[in-house]
């Protein structure tokens, strides 16, 4: 079985002061799946990476809207989509390589690698000049038969 049980979306300006808001909001929503502290941290980390990318790369010289939506499924899966209407990515395969970055010294090029290793699945879709959409899923294991 894999049917949707809940959903939400948040929309906010690409200011770095909103990064904490975004990861905490997703964590508060994901809490319904009764995750462990480590699972919640994995989700916060992945969301933080994806949202930071929108702020730092997609809207590098400008400010725009970022949308984060999340769905919960009855098998304990959470699916998170982070979307921007920024500059887009020319070569996604290259962008996903560990250590590849077009950012400044503050960027390590490890964002996608960390999203991949902290979540179960990562899909990146992007079109130059249109925007980028990052979809991440993670299955939260049932505990004490709570589901």
């Amino acid at each position, binding site marked *: 079985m894999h049917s949707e049980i809940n959903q939400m979306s948040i929309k906010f300006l690409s200011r770095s*002061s909103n990064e904490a808001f975004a990861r905490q909001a997703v964590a508060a929503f994901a809490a319904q799946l009764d995750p462990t502290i480590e699972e919640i941290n994995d989700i916060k980390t992945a969301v933080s990476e994806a949202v930071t990318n929108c702020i730092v790369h997609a809207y590098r010289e400008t400010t725009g809207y970022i949308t984060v939506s999340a769905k919960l499924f009855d098998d304990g899966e959470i699916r998170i989509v982070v979307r921007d209407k920024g500059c887009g990515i020319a070569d996604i395969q290259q962008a996903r390589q560990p250590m590849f970055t077009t950012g400044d010294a503050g960027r390590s090029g490890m964002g996608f690698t960390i999203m991949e290793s902290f979540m179960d699945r990562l899909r990146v879709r992007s079109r130059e000049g249109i925007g980028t959409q990052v979809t991440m899923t993670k299955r939260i294991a049932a505990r004490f038969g709570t589901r």
Partner: protein
Amino acid sequence: MKCSHKRERCGIVIRFHGELGHHEAAQCVEYLEKTMTLYPTEPIFLDLSGLTFMDSSGIAVVLGAQRNVLGAGQSFCVIGTPPTAMRIFQASGICRRVTFLPALPQTEGEEDDLCTAK
């Protein structure tokens, strides 16, 4: 995010408390640079045990700090890294270049103190 530092026998311990993402990274870098300027001739220990969250922004913060300290001819070491932050450092491979210790190394003086205290 709060930054603080104090002098210990073994050197200067700089401590970060709270969440460290991209937004907070600039503040951390600034604090590190300011503190290193104050104590240019001391070993620097970066204590991450107070971090409740860290993403990949922490990698560049640590690498930049190490570059500055080693450049000044001092030693640099990260202590008390929480397990979740450690997973990020491990994924990035910087553990091969930066020294991570569970806690401050015990100096001989401190061992003496402990004995006397007993």
